[in-house]
């Protein structure tokens, strides 16, 4: 898999969770990359409350953090 394909695969996982109604609630970064915790904000009882992704690719780590920054900016506007 090319470098870019790795990024796309990770981005799809992030996008999938966001589309399902999850938001980023926690991040831990260490030597292994980033561990991102998503919390469900919708009303579907079938959904799990939390999901975690291990994000490896540098572009994916930029991607989720860009979303997090936007998420916080939106919250501060409300």
């Amino acid at each position: 898999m090319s470098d870019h394909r790795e990024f796309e695969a990770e981005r799809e996982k992030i996008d999938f969770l966001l589309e399902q109604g999850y938001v980023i609630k926690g991040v831990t970064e260490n030597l292994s990359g980033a561990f991102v915790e998503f919390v469900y904000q919708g009303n579907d009882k079938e959904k799990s409350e939390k999901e975690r992704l291990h994000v490896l690719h540098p572009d994916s780590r930029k991607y989720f953090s860009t979303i997090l920054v936007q998420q916080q900016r939106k919250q501060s506007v409300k």
Partner: protein
Amino acid sequence: MADLSLNLAGIKSPNPFWLASAPPTNSGYQVQRAFEAGWGGAVWKTLGEPILNVSSRFAAVGFNGKKVAGFNNIELITDRPLEVNLKEIYETKKKFPNHAIIASLMVEPTQEKWHEIVKRVEDVGVDGLELNFGCPHGMAERGMGAASGQVPELVEKQTMWAKEVAQTPVIVKLTPNITDITFTAEAAVNGGADAVSMINTINSLAGVDIDTWDTIPNVAGKGAHGGYCGPAVKPIALNMVAECARHPKINVPISGMGGVSSWREAVEFMLMGATGVQVCTAAMHHGFSIVEDMKDGLNNYLDEKGIDSVMDLVGKSVEKYSDWGNLDLNHQIVAKINNDVCINCNKCHIACEDTSHQCIDMLKDANGNDILKVREEDCVGCNLCSIVCPVDGAIDMVEYANGKPPMTWNERQAAIGAVSSCDVDLIK
């Protein structure tokens, strides 16, 4: 025609090009020749107790056909008695009243020594003083030059001593042989400096003769470290000027030097906060007449930009220089190979494949011709391909519109810090 005249902390000169304290400003004869050639000012070769020099003294470091990419010297300060220098300074100033003469000074770090030399030098009518806390060789072994310039407390103290009696502006010349030049620059400001100048030369050994095993240069087979300057040191000097220019506590003018060889470098230094530049190596390589091209080039540049005065350049790029953490992580550029210009030497492919991000493919076009193509999605915009490309216009680095909003590292870390951390042990 733009106004090239300069005012550095009250020291005025007809243009921003000064000769640095060094062999070109050793005597009245030389400085007068320089002023006749068009230099705006000269920092007289450092005055102090006359020293003894060795032979030989200089060495050049060539690169790729360029004979003087860097320059190394082990010459010390003036070897002439103070009275001789002062007489020539007086005569030169009388002959060239509108040109700036700054006396570079170096004495032992005591109040009495500084008071004595400042008073004696100012008596002959210099326009300013430059305290030499930067010379890295010889004098440093005696506790002067870089040895005292590496200790912020000594820089502050000696600046204070000079200022106690000085009637003219005091410039403090700083050594680059220190981890962070802003520490010593701030010490100079705390001591009352009217300006700082940088950089003095960098500790260096020009080379070793692989046949004789002697150092280059050497004195009867024995060498000692010297001071490095010339075009090769420009990026180091420019960064140090910029770091001081953007430092909130270093709020005095900066005289910039280190690898200034043409008007272009002078513009770069001034944009990065230097109020004028000092030049040595280029004059030693090509003679005093280079200043004609420097003045013409600078004047044309200012006219083309519609800038009335060279002073209006000072510091204009400083706000564009910041910490890495303030750069936009989402800004993206990619390489674009223009195959109509490309000569298919494959240097970009080799550089990218061996040492960068493996994103330049060797392909065939519809007619079976060899072409090179960048996979933009994998290109990180490092610039390496365009740097190694031997053909102008064959590779452009172009902005890639990725639609992402700007986000700096500092913003990112603040955002992550604002949310909780997750339990990593649960991750499989």
